[in-house]
């Protein structure tokens, strides 16, 4: 491991100033459960690590009439332990509560999960399905990017050197909506997704028809995939086995997996289809309350 400087600023302004000094030889540190692993494995040679956990704005969780704001450094356990979030955003809790084990979840957060940009990031599909937005700061000001456009490849994001994720903004879910996420892993815990599917559905007042849906896939492409055709196919359709199977087949078509030590192309495509069906049903169940 290359020796690096450790800095722990207390404002966003100081943090982005520090980051901009080092270009791509500095990285923000949230829970560190990805960063430290990579630094030790010499994936990166860093000159500085900028700890964000002393910046109050990045450690705050806010839930109000307009939606949910998750500070970039908030650890997973604070997300899933919050009963309001659990009630209104169960899809996010599905993801946050399976990242690693208890120890990992007490450090790791959704911000780090997003910025790490693993195609298998379990926290990300629900954020895409729920149309969440990333708030980004740099010495030049702030900007917003939809989560579905945030990750651009394995370990690659839209963040430029010197930019910092401040928070993830999730709009308030509409009435009669529900969301769910699951992944397939060969073991029962502490594993990496062979395929993952996050689903958001909005039903009409009767609860019998879909108004809209968004489906996001993990681990079946170089980055996370918004399966638009699959989600759109449900809009205006009745909730039944046929429409759900059709959407699941479209999700399968949207997947572009590879064969590697975690699974084959065939297996992953099949898993996407099976999990999509299961998650649509679960999201519908939640939407109906």
């Amino acid at each position, binding site marked *: 491991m290359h020796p690096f400087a450790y800095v722990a600023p207390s404002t966003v302004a100081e943090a982005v100033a520090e980051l901009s000094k080092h270009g791509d030889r500095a990285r923000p540190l949230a829970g560190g459960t990805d960063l430290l692993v990579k630094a030790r494995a010499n994936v990166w040679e860093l000159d500085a690590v900028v700890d964000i956990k002393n910046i109050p704005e990045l450690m705050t969780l806010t839930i109000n009439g307009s939606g949910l704001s998750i500070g970039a450094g908030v650890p997973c356990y604070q997300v899933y332990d919050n009963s309001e979030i659990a009630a209104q955003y169960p899809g996010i809790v599905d993801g946050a509560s399976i990242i690693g084990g208890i120890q990992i979840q007490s450090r790791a957060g959704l911000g780090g999960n997003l910025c790490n940009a693993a195609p298998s990031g379990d926290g990300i599909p629900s954020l895409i399905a729920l149309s969440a937005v990333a708030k980004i700061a740099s010495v030049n000001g702030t900007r917003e990017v939809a989560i579905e456009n945030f990750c651009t490849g394995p370990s690659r994001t839209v963040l430029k050197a010197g930019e910092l994720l401040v928070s993830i903004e999730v709009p308030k879910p509409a009435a009669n909506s529900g969301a769910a996420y699951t992944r*397939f892993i060969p073991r029962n*815990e502490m594993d990496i997704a062979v395929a993952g599917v996050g689903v958001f559905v909005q039903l009409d007042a009767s609860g019998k028809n879909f108004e809209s849906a968004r489906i996001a896939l993990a681990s079946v492409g170089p980055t996370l995939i918004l399966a638009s055709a699959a989600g759109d196919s449900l809009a205006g359709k009745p909730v039944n086995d046929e429409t759900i199977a059709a959407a699941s087949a479209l999700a399968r078509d949207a997947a572009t997996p590879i064969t590697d*030590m975690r699974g084959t192309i*065939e297996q992953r495509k099949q898993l996407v289809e099976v999990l999509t069906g299961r998650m649509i049903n679960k999201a519908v169940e939640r939407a109906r309350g």
Partner: protein
Amino acid sequence: MVATFEPKTDYKVVGTRPIRHDGYDKVTGRAIYGADVKLPGLIWAVCVRSPHAHANIKSIDTSAAEAHEGVFAVITGADMPKAESKLVDLGEGNINFKWASNKLMADKKVLYRGHPVAAIAAIDRYTAEEAARKVVVEYEVLPSVTNVVDALKDDAPIILPDMVGDDLGEDVTNTNMAAHVRHEFGDVAGAMASAAHTVEREYNMQMVHQGYIEPQNATATWDEEDRIKIWTSTQGAFPARTQIAGILQVDVSRVKVTPTEIGGGFGGKIPVYFEPLAAILSKKSQRPVKMVMERTAVFETTGPTPGARMIVKLGADANGKLTAATADIWFEAGANPGAFIGPAAMCIYAPYEIPNTRIDGWDVLVNKPKVAPYRAPGSPQVAFAMESAVNELCENAGWDPLNFRIDNASKEGTRRGDGVLFSKIGMQEVLEATKESAHWNAPIGDAPEGKVRGRGIASGYWFNIGLKSSANLAVNSDGTVQLTEGSTDIGGSRTSMAMHVAEVLGIGAHDVRPTVGDTESIGYTDVTGGSRTTYATGYACWIAANNLVDVLKERVAVLWDINKDDVEFNDGSFSSKAEAQKTIGFKELAGKLDDLGGPANSTGSVDLESAGDGFGMHIADIEIDLATGKSDIIRYTAVQDVGTAIHPAYVEGQLQGGSAQGIGWALNEEYYMQDDGKMANSSFLDYRMPTTLDLPLIETVLVEVPNPLHPYGVRGVGETPICPPIPAIANAINDAIGKRLYNTPMNAGSILKALK
């Protein structure tokens, strides 16, 4: 004449479950493991490793690394003593110093990915890592082979050009085949031709790793007197000393090995890796040197167990009696010879009485790490093939697989696949116990919607070794006893040793304080392995305790001024044969020893043949999700003949641990190799061993048929339980989905494919 013993039942200590003597230190983090060893002036070393699986080293330039600030010493293959080609028995497998030395540090050629080409000692680990990146190695990359089929092709790249292969006794050169052996008995061709039912199948298995939690490590000093001291995590301080001295070309008495506590080994910590390198770096730097391996290197460079290709054919008559069996097995040795085809031949047919048998085994070099023993090395592989074939034979003919095994069970006088005739064995008792077990008699239950269930059984066998062990005892004035023994303690053995002593002396298990000795504080003791430890070292403890009784009788004779022959010892108490009311307890006597001749010590040592044959039978219930191929083991039982269970909890632990490892091997574990010879999954993330959430509570049935060759009837138990799980699960999968898998791992992907 080998001594034999009548079984006893009226034990006081044997068969109880005292808490382990090392328990508190281990759960509170006080126990000293290899990585905890710190010496004044200690420096750290790391290896520079080959990124290629097979390449010639054209040049190595270490000058920039040597100039790096904080670096004390750099070594390459040129610094390794040129070890001679000499075969030495390490208890569970042999070692040839020539290959063993080359495995630790490449000379002119790298033979597997991760093969060390240099090692660097520096002020701390990170400085050593930084300097290591400055070593410039020029490679000429050669084509590599990573499976036995490719390795034996005519145009295969030759891994060790100077190796002479042994093909049924004939020398062969320019080959990757290190050995081909054959055992044939009876009229195999005739019996197979007239069999009413036959089955013939090919089975393939990938390499798997022992997966011990503590990586390899070593701390070494080489002083001005040329005395070498090593602290290391090893399964045997003395066999480690033999290897270190052999590789460094010094007398064994120059090397002192202190075994630290050990975080698992399963056979993988019998070979040495870092010890000689740390010693040479210490000699060069004049400092103590420490090395601790990273997990990737543990996977890429330390002993996995062989991957295998196997073809098994069975023949049976119309009445369900096995008449003939043949097996052709090719095992991956890794980059040096030695793939455990011998044990495979000993084990493959052992649970059965088969009049006509043949086995041909090939030991094949591939560009992968040299294999090391892993719990019953060679036996789980052949058990997968044999026990799958037996079940398939039964399915085709409509026979019940448990009754078939009972009808064909091996017994006293049965000839094993390698020709050895069994003495008294417990296979039939194990089968009967299985038939009567709660699990076998319980229905499997209905699967939830979308899932199916299946049950499978399989047997397994390991022969268990004996070998050499030593123990010393000394009485303390407070009535306790110090026990020093030579077996490094992996699975609670020091408590079992203390229990042997306590039983003889009539004192409590915690009145004996056991210590694992270093190579200068105890007599020669072989590895903790081969399922020998409780048997052989326990036996040595029993002898030492009886010798101590003898010493103490002399002291009692002085005390009472009578003849030693008139002193009796029973249940922890000495008495006079002449005057029955004259008695003195062990503890009271201990307090008087100062006036009766001073310290009372004793010693015991053994060199034994075998710890008795170990047979087991497992039952596995599996549940499979038909849509995803995901499986869960929902119930699991291990039945085994364990001789006498000295500490039943540790015996159960061995059965459970072996089962857990076998389940992992069956379902998910594998060396997933890329075409360029790189292992793609060299981390615990992608090398999927089962977690506690992946296993049910493993039920055990201890069948106690005392071993007449041990004073308390102990039999080896640790290795047999890894043999049945793989075929038991294959048979359960077949029961659940009606499809048989012939390759490991039998993961969700392969199940899904079979369902298509």
